[in-house]
């Protein structure tokens, strides 16, 4: 018996350093945290995020920085280039472009983001249903989409003008009434392709609910095209807003949006390029950062991208 027994001298005491080797020190990383860490390591994406934050802050506080205001006309000082008083120059009525640009950025970015959100929600739900169920449901919804898409949106906009007063809500409603359709089609196509994948069949076999399959399995895998479509929605909504204000529904003067500023500047961009450059640069840079950050986000969210 004694032979078989362990004797205390067979053991050595662990020193302090060795004491915790068996414990999983690294806390378990959730998928989200993992993604966040990977995102942080993507320098360009982080720079984009910082620029986006700066643009957002400027859109809120920018108009307050300058001593000028967005609406006072200085007819004697119109079409001035950037200078000490008017940092971005003045427009054709001598209004300060710095305040107008940031004010416009605030309005336009809101328009873009709200419109993109509306498209996202409507498009993903309806597109998802079309793609997943197929058959008659698909046929009917698809036709509905085609009809909505074919009705001249200008008629709808004019009707909205007659019924409502111009406001952010009406603008977003006008923009998304037909805007979501292209998103729905993209989602539909993706879902139609994805739903035949083995893991979906497995999930179905295991009795997962339709909503779960759709939102946990299918939509996340279709995220790439969805994000890309969204990044198109934002600038197109910004320019569509300019068209709306042309019809009397968008931002009304003297307030400015980037789209209307660019429209105004277009008439004389060869003479007064700064009137075009500043608002266009804000849109382009913002969109660039959105895209780079969006790519970074997608890379981070997609475990397959791990290197």
């Amino acid at each position, binding site marked *: 018996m004694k032979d078989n027994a362990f004797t205390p001298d067979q053991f050595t005491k662990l020193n302090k350093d060795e004491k915790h080797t068996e414990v999983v020190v690294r806390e378990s990383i959730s998928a989200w945290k993992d993604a966040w860490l990977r995102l942080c390591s993507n320098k360009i994406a982080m720079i984009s995020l910082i620029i986006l934050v700066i643009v957002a802050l400027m859109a809120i506080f920018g108009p307050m920085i300058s001593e000028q205001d967005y609406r006072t*006309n200085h007819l004697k000082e*119109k079409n001035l280039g950037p200078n000490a008083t008017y940092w971005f120059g003045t427009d054709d*009525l001598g209004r300060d472009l710095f305040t107008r640009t940031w004010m416009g950025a605030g309005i336009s970015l809101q328009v873009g983001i709200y419109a993109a959100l509306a498209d996202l929600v409507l498009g993903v739900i309806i597109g998802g249903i079309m793609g997943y169920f197929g058959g008659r449901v698909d046929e009917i919804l698809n036709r509905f989409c085609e009809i909505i898409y074919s009705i001249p949106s200008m008629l709808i906009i004019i009707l909205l003008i*007659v019924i409502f007063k111009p406001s952010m809500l009406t603008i977003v409603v006008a923009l998304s009434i037909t805007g979501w359709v292209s998103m729905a089609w993209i989602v539909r196509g993706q879902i139609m392709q994805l739903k035949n994948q083995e893991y979906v069949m497995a999930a179905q076999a295991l009795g997962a609910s339709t909503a779960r399959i759709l939102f946990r399995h299918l939509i996340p895998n279709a995220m790439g095209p969805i994000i890309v479509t969204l990044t198109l929605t934002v600038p197109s909504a910004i320019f569509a807003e300019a068209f709306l204000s042309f*019809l*009397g529904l968008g931002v*009304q*003067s003297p307030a400015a949006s980037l789209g209307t500023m660019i429209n105004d500047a277009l008439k*004389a961009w060869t*003479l007064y390029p700064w009137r075009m450059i500043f608002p266009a640069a804000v849109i382009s840079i913002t969109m660039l950062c959105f895209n780079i950050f969006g790519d970074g986000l997608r890379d981070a969210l997609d475990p397959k991208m791990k290197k």
Partner: protein
Amino acid sequence: MRTRKSAFSFIAALLILAIIAVGCTPKNETGNNGAANNESSNNGAAGEATDAKVFRMNIHSEPSSLDPALMEDNVSGTLATGIYEGLTRKNENGESIPATAEKWVQSEDGLTYTFTIRQDAKWSNGDPVTANDFEFSWKRALDPATGSTYAYQFYYIAGAQDYNEGKTTNADAVGIKALDAQTLEVKLVAPTPYFLSLTSFYVYNPVHQSVKDNEAWAADAVTIIGNGPFKMSEWQHNTSIKLVKSDSYYDKDQVKFAGVDFTMIEDSATELANYETNKLDYTGKPTGEIPSEQIPVLKESKKDEFVTKGIASSYYYMFNTEEVPFNNVKVRKALAMAIDRQAIVESVTMAGEVPSFGFVPPGIIGMKDDYRNEVKDDFFTEDVEEAKKLLAEGLAELKLAKFPEVTLTFNTSDGHKKIAEAIVEMWRQNLGIEVGAKNEEFSVLLKNRTAMNYQISRAGWGADYNDPMTYMDMFVTGGGQNNTGFSSPEYDALIKKAYASGDQAERIAAMTEAEKILMDQMPIMPIYYYSNTYMLKPGFKNIFLDYKGDIDYTRGYYEAK
């Protein structure tokens, strides 16, 4: 590495394909869609005699119609000047001169005109133009079935209104009668001194009697029959129209251009670019446009080509006088007095407009001279202090503590928007009031205006004929254009008096009095008198705009330096 290499060859292949595809444009199909001008026509002319030049201008868009009875825009009018010719034409001073009618006599009471059609007047197909053609054409325009929107321009003729409104179906009751092939007798309702001026208006142009057999005659180059200095040789819908000199025109010796090419370019920057790259000889009003922001620059850089001409049109804002606060005349006047019109024309519109303090624009004939020279437009002055006082008094009379929320509406256009923004800002700075500026789609605006569903609305008016009446009869009680709620029995009586009278002095006096009432009550706030700006390439001569800004190119010629 392999992957990338293959990718590149794949790309290269695609690129080559793309280049080939672009290179293989189907030439034959596109060769005749000439939105920009066909340069060869001018190059060919350059070597020949200088008078064989083709004149090239822009008309912006498709004419609404080339059937005189149905024309209603200046694009149609510009083309009609070349294709058709009425009884009279206008010279550069706006006077009526003989055209298809070689002479006319007016009866003692001023109620009957007898026109003599010239013997050698011919249609483009060689048929003679007769007095019967005019009788046919005018009655056709009055026939309700024709659907002419401008038929009311004939209402000065006895029986015309009844016939057009369907009160009688008897066309013989209308006072238009061909006494013989050369003589046309016209009976008027009242002595209308400006009737002669109307006979050069495009609805008064004749149409060939054969058109009744072909309803769509005016939609194609081959079926259009005109009697003007030019005839149509080609009509590419939405793209271009080409006219060539007509050999059957009686005065063809005076017509120097071999033809006129019209392009339909909507974008003003594109139009200017075409002019600058020598694809157009003429750019700007009436049917084109020079981008307003370019005007100050071009005025300097193209001094010899740039022309500004005042035209008989007024730009103004109308007030809804039935609603608070514009039911008070002092409030209306305050707003009219608190803006700086000079600054607007100098810095905002920039096309040489003239600040207006009256309603009738210069260019309209009065007793002998220009009406505006005879009756100065000093009905009110700009005075911010006085305006503030009036506004305070007006608001007190209305028992308002502060200026209520009101909106200025204008129809969608960059120009109107800019003016509205400038004026609203002047009101804010000078009177301390907030007025919203809102653009509305044109139909919506018009609908709201006729329904009196507005507070301040932008408006403009161009002369139909050369007499102050074309402006003054707008604001009679219940008038179709009077959407301000303005009503003054005194004003109505003066207009009625001017209508009935054949004595020019009496008429002008009555209308002067009426204009004074209008400006005193101020249902409308004048802003400026329009002007047209255009550029014409050096060497082109005798192309001019008449008093209302319509272009006459028919006797133009080219003279190389």
